[in-house]
């Protein structure tokens, strides 16, 4: 900075007295002329030549945090990109217009008047003028091809520019040589090709412009996600509401939201009650109710109420920012199917150049008169028709649209490989709790054995389970809270994974868990076997509760099946996918749930660590296995599966933990994910096949292989048009994916 001003946002400045301290710390920095803090905005304006890092350091040394206001938001970056793209588009269209203004009349002349041959001095002079005009077009409209080709050449690499520059350059140079050294050429070869040079440059500019427009549409999904971000936030500071840019919101700021407004950053509600539309992130159409201590997520829309919430994640840390980042990364990753293009990438253009030279040599050696003209036309046409861009665009463009489309449906795909594997899944393992069911079990019956009072059983069981995060434990605690029971302190608590818990409450030894736990601890349960079986047959999970080694009660907990699980499982099976259910629950409960949702293959009483064994078993049977779980307990199984699906509830997503994350709880997301990945792979295959066939057929045709048999030769201008539009076709085909609709549900 040279005596300029810069702005810093200060975190942790809770009182007005901090202002003086921060200003003083900054003023003491060498090179700072002045520092003035606007306390309500938590922003300090520094004048002077000191660097930003030094200033941030000084603030930190004074006991506060500072951050720059300079970082561009996604929104700003998108605007900049669109402005730059528009300017580039205009430049291409202008380039095309200038080239075609010369090329079209020349082309018309060659078609109407006939061959563009040179014989008289007047013709030579006229063509010289045309040649110079063409050079002007090459400079104005095609400069970027020639510079790009030269720079690549110096770098020992070759690209699209190389082919265009060589093709158009050769045609122009040959024509100029004919004009200048007419007599050196045989009569029949005294031909100029200025129209080809001008037309090809014009058409390729047009192709690039159309491609740019089509590419813009491939990123509509990410644009929509970025558009979800609010631009400003209303924060409560010093008892006053102030509107500030979203980038200036600090951690722990209180943010006020009124009806109809967007949530600007992530946070926890501290005041008020409302319902929030989260469909834009989760695809879940029903608004979600929010009250104190509930989480709100940036990008969602407040419906009716007003709330104040405390900012817990701001800037690049919000869930929305993570989602945008993940979608962007996934859009740029490549599935294995496209590797062939990677392999041939280094060989393609030089190979085309060699084919061009070989075809010229063949025509010169064996071609009919005028051999030199035939050689030139074929060599040029080979260079022009080859289109590495179509091959290069084939996979990434489809991935871009497919991953974006999935994100719109609430499905986050981690990378291209996950996308490709998901399309091949043959077996899907579903965890029962939280995946097929809501994962929010409720106490539905209490069968007393030695205990005499339900409340007493619940009070003790809930006290024991209070520290556990297991969904069944949560249901017991909630049930106790509903009955307004006061929980006691638990001592010597011990969780026995996959079995239950034990501990001491009010001096009593408590044991709470499944049948296996009771048998392991020698608690007699034979008398209640029938009761437990009856509960299980009704899809309730029987939980045994023992006090001092005696069975006190059996508590039936049932976890309601998500209302669309049956339909979604039907969709999976219709696609020929083997659906398998896993649960830690007992067999009878598992069977009751499996029967209800139409699953015939299930494994009950599976310990968490055994889940990955089940995945491995299916893989050994030759299946490509998808595993769906909550992303936390199932982590090893998710990691081992060919594709791990983490199923989110609401926006509480573990987006980093799985190959594919379903942001809403519905299993339809699973079927959607598979359907989108299949559609994307189909689209990639179409693109790759099209691009390969185009190049494989176009290049020999351009080289003139059909001439000996049918007397057909391709014009370089037609080759230029074909090349320009082959890329556009690939991008447009990828855009067709945008119209893809997952099956109605």
């Amino acid at each position, binding site marked *: 900075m040279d005596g300029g001003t810069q702005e810093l946002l200060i975190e942790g400045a809770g009182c007005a007295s901090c202002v003086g301290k921060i200003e003083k710390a900054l003023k003491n920095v060498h090179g700072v002329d002045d520092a003035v803090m606007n306390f309500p905005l938590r922003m300090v304006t520094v004048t002077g030549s000191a660097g930003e890092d030094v200033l941030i350091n000084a603030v930190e040394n004074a006991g506060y945090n500072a951050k720059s206001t300079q970082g561009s938001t996604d929104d700003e970056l998108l605007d900049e*990109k669109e402005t730059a793209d528009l300017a580039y588009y205009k430049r291409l269209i202008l380039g095309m217009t200038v080239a075609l203004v010369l090329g079209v009349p020349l082309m018309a002349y060659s078609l109407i008047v006939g061959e563009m041959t040179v014989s008289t001095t007047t013709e030579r002079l006229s063509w010289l003028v045309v040649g110079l005009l063409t050079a002007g077009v090459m400079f104005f409209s095609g400069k970027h091809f020639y510079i790009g080709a030269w720079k*690549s050449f110096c770098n020992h690499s070759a690209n699209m520019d190389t082919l265009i520059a060589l093709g158009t350059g050769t045609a122009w140079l040959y024509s100029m040589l004919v004009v200048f050294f007419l007599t050196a050429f045989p009569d029949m070869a005294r031909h100029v090709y200025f129209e080809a040079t001008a037309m090809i440059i014009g058409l390729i500019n047009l192709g690039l412009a159309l491609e740019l427009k089509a590419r813009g549409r491939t990123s509509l999904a990410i644009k929509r996600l970025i558009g979800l971000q609010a631009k400003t936030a209303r924060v409560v500071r010093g008892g006053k509401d102030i509107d500030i840019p979203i980038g200036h919101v600090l951690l722990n700021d209180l943010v006020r939201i009124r009806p109809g407004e967007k949530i600007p950053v992530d946070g926890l509600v501290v005041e008020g009650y409302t319902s929030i539309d989260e469909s834009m992130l989760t695809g879940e159409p029903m608004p979600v109710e929010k009250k104190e201590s509930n989480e709100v997520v940036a990008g969602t829309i407040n419906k009716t109420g007003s709330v104040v919430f405390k900012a817990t994640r701001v800037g690049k840390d919000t869930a929305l920012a993570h989602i945008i980042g993940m979608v962007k990364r996934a859009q740029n990753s490549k599935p294995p199917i496209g590797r062939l293009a*990677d392999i041939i990438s280094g*060989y393609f253009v*030089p190979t085309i150049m060699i084919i061009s030279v070989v075809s010229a040599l063949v025509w010169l050696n064996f071609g009919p008169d005028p051999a030199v003209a035939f050689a030139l036309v074929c060599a040029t046409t080979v260079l022009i028709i080859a289109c590495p861009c179509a091959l290069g665009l*084939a996979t990434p463009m489809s991935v871009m649209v497919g991953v974006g489309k999935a994100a719109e449906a609430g499905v986050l795909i981690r990378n291209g490989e996950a996308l490709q594997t998901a399309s091949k899944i043959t077996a899907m393992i579903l965890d029962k709790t939280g995946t097929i069911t809501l994962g929010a079990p409720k106490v539905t019956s209490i069968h007393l054995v030695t205990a005499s009072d339900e409340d007493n059983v619940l009070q003790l069981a809930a006290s024991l389970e209070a520290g556990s995060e297991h969904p069944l434990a949560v249901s017991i605690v909630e049930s106790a809270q509903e009955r307004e029971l006061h929980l006691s302190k638990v001592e010597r608590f011990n969780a026995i994974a996959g079995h239950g818990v034990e501990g001491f409450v009010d001096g009593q030894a408590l044991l709470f868990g499944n049948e296996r736990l009771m048998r392991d601890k020698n608690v007699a349960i034979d008398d209640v076997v029938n009761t437990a079986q009856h509960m299980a047959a009704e899809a309730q999970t029987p939980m045994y509760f023992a006090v001092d080694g005696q069975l006190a009660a059996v508590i039936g907990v049932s976890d309601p099946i998500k209302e669309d699980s049956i339909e979604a499982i039907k969709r999976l099976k219709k696609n020929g996918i083997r659906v398998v259910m896993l649960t830690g629950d007992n067999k009878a409960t598992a069977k009751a749930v499996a029967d209800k949702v139409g699953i015939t293959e299930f494994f009950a009483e599976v310990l968490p660590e055994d889940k990955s064994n089940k995945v491995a078993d299916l893989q050994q049977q030759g299946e490509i296995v998808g595993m769906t779980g909550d992303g936390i307990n199932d982590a090893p199984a998710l990691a081992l599966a060919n594709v791990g699906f983490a199923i989110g509830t609401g926006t509480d997503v573990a987006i980093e933990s799985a190959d594919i994350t379903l942001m809403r709880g519905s299993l339809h997301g699973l079927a959607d994910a598979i359907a989108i990945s299949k559609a994307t792979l189909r689209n990639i295959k179409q693109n790759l096949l099209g691009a390969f066939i185009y190049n494989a057929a176009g290049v020999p045709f351009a080289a003139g292989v059909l001439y000996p048999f049918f007397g057909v030769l391709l014009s370089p201008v037609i080759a230029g048009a074909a090349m320009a539009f082959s890329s556009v076709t690939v991008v447009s085909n990828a855009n067709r994916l945008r119209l893809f609709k997952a099956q109605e549900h």
Partner: protein
Amino acid sequence: MMLIINIVGLLLIVGIVWWFWLYKPSELDVNSDVSELLITVENGVYSPSRVSIPSGQVTAVKFLRKEASPCAGTVVFADMNISEELPLNKEKTIQLPALEPGTYSFTCQMQMQMYKGEITVSEQ
């Protein structure tokens, strides 16, 4: 006459093979001061396209895209799962994690890797 033309043609083919496939650059473009590592994206190439950084330390690489073509708009470090959009005429800093010695390529988003560069990570 044809003999000369054929020899020239064959030499051209040999030249293409050598220049684009066989030639191995021995010198790296940038070797020392990684604190000022700026890679310009212009006219279809990264410049410098071959750079060297020491192993085992996080390195910031600055990219400056001067070319409006959308092909230049994204740089991908596939080995590191990094892909970043490059704004036009504005420096963009990309943090590379501490890397093991080896060669890592960076490319444009498109698969034919029209833009290609290499980072050589060498023992410190």
